[in-house]
């Protein structure tokens, strides 16, 4: 059973019932789910969690929905891989990669959507909707298919065809909106007020956002019930970055781990870096930006959780970094070539920023670090299509192959002298 007890305003602390609402009536601050942690503490143990399914539902008591409403596509409990070759390449003693490329729709969004859809069914919504340029739409459409719910996906007018197919295959109603990105934002907010649909990142947002905590639960469990010295996560809205820290704290309050001392750092692309820019200026007030980066899954110019992310950096002695589009591609290649994991551009941002933070000494060599890789590389094939080496082109003769190989790479492995 779920131990969610109320929605609580992040600003003024007022509590509300667990309804499909997202902002405080008094101060208009965002609402977040609060749990009966004493109840959880009495009900769960390391053993009871370890005996659960190999999905996010092993943490059901910590989730804000009843598991009977779930649509289980097998999300979560993704590998935490020790990345020794990458660690050596960038100058760390111990590095772990949380590989969320292996989720059902190849991104961490399956975690948040799993919770949103379960809660939407519990509320009795018959339709689910979202506004997205990629990963979120793919995941919502897939889960809606599994739930036999009506699904509406709103996308900007100029979105590439490839991005539409990744949602369209699950047969939702895809709506291209004529107008700017801001117009899509406005239309969806208005629709959410008028239609009784569950808009995953609007009226069920407090529940949806909680799904990201499962990354934090998994990292702590997979490290042997402890938290790392440092963690680097990509930041778009800043929600995932803040929820991982919330997860560590809740695990501690539930008696499962010691008090977390993790330094929490965030990664952004230079072409959309409102949070990192504010961090560098030493302020909690970020200036919204017009995104211009290949890391489109991180292209949120006006991040809802930016303020909270910046506060968390101060609180945990963490930091924020940003990388150019060229460094994003280098980051993708470095991760692929050293660890065999192909990440989308957001992963390139994370690895690029991690590398810079180690090089500058912000992350010390001895700090055990976890990097969150949030989505798979096939999602952003176009970003690296010109960055991979051309094949050797040969005639079907050994001599032709040997000559071409020698010209490009030198001595062949296993060649007789």
């Amino acid at each position, binding site marked *: 059973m779920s131990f969610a007890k109320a929605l609580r305003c992040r600003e003024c602390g007022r509590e509300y019932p667990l309804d499909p609402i*997202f902002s405080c009536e008094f101060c208009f*601050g965002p609402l977040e789910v609060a749990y009966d942690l004493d109840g959880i503490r009495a009900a769960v143990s390391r053993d009871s969690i370890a005996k659960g399914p190999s999905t996010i539902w092993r943490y059901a008591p910590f989730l804000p929905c009843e598991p009977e409403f779930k649509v289980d596509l097998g999300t979560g409990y993704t590998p935490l891989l020790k990345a020794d070759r990458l660690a050596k390449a960038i100058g760390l003693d111990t590095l772990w990669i949380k590989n969320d490329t292996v989720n059902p729709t190849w991104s961490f969004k399956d975690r948040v959507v799993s919770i949103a859809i379960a809660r939407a069914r519990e509320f009795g919504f018959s339709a689910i909707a979202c506004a997205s340029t990629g990963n979120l739409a793919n995941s919502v459409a897939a889960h809606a298919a599994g739930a036999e719910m009506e699904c509406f996906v709103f996308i900007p007018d100029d979105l590439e065809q490839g991005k539409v197919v990744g949602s369209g295959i699950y047969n939702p109603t895809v709506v291209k909106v004529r107008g700017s990105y801001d117009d899509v934002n406005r239309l969806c907010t208005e629709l959410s007020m008028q239609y009784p649909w569950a808009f995953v990142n609007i009226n069920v947002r407090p529940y949806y956002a909680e799904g990201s905590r499962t990354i934090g639960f998994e990292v702590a469990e997979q490290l042997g019930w402890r938290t790392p010295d440092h963690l680097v996560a990509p930041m778009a809205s800043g929600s995932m970055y803040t929820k991982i820290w919330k997860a560590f704290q809740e695990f501690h309050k539930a008696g499962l781990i010691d008090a977390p001392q993790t330094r929490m750092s965030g990664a952004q692309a230079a072409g959309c870096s409102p949070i990192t820019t504010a961090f560098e200026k030493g302020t909690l007030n970020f200036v919204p930006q017009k995104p211009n980066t290949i890391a489109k899954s991180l292209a949120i110019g006006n991040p809802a959780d930016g303020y909270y992310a910046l506060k968390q950096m101060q609180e945990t002695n963490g930091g924020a970094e940003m990388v150019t589009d060229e460094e994003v591609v280098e980051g993708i290649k470095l991760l692929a070539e050293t660890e065999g994991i192909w990440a989308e551009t957001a992963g390139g941002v994370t690895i690029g920023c991690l590398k810079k933070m180690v090089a500058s000494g912000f992350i010390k060599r001895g700090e055990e670090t976890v990097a969150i890789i949030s989505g798979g590389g096939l999602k952003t094939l176009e970003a690296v299509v010109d960055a991979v080496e051309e094949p050797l082109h040969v005639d079907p003769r050994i001599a032709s192959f040997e000559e071409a190989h020698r010209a490009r790479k030198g001595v062949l492995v296993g060649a007789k002298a």
Partner: protein
Amino acid sequence: MEKHVRLTFGPESVKKPLVYQLGHEFKVVTSIRMADVDKSIGWVVLGLEGDPDEIERALAWVRAQGVRVDEPTLGDVVEGGA
């Protein structure tokens, strides 16, 4: 009707008395719920009460002053990946 908005001011607009002017130029009642302002940037979360058309006219005027207008707690609704 009451509408909630978040106004973000940049260096050009942060020193102007725009919330005051909003209440004078348009028939809307403004109510500040949260705010933070420093030298070069500031934001205010505002309740606006009045006729819906008048509120829209007021917000169009605010935008024309170079101020960004958003729904208070959501930020960008269109999402990509993380």
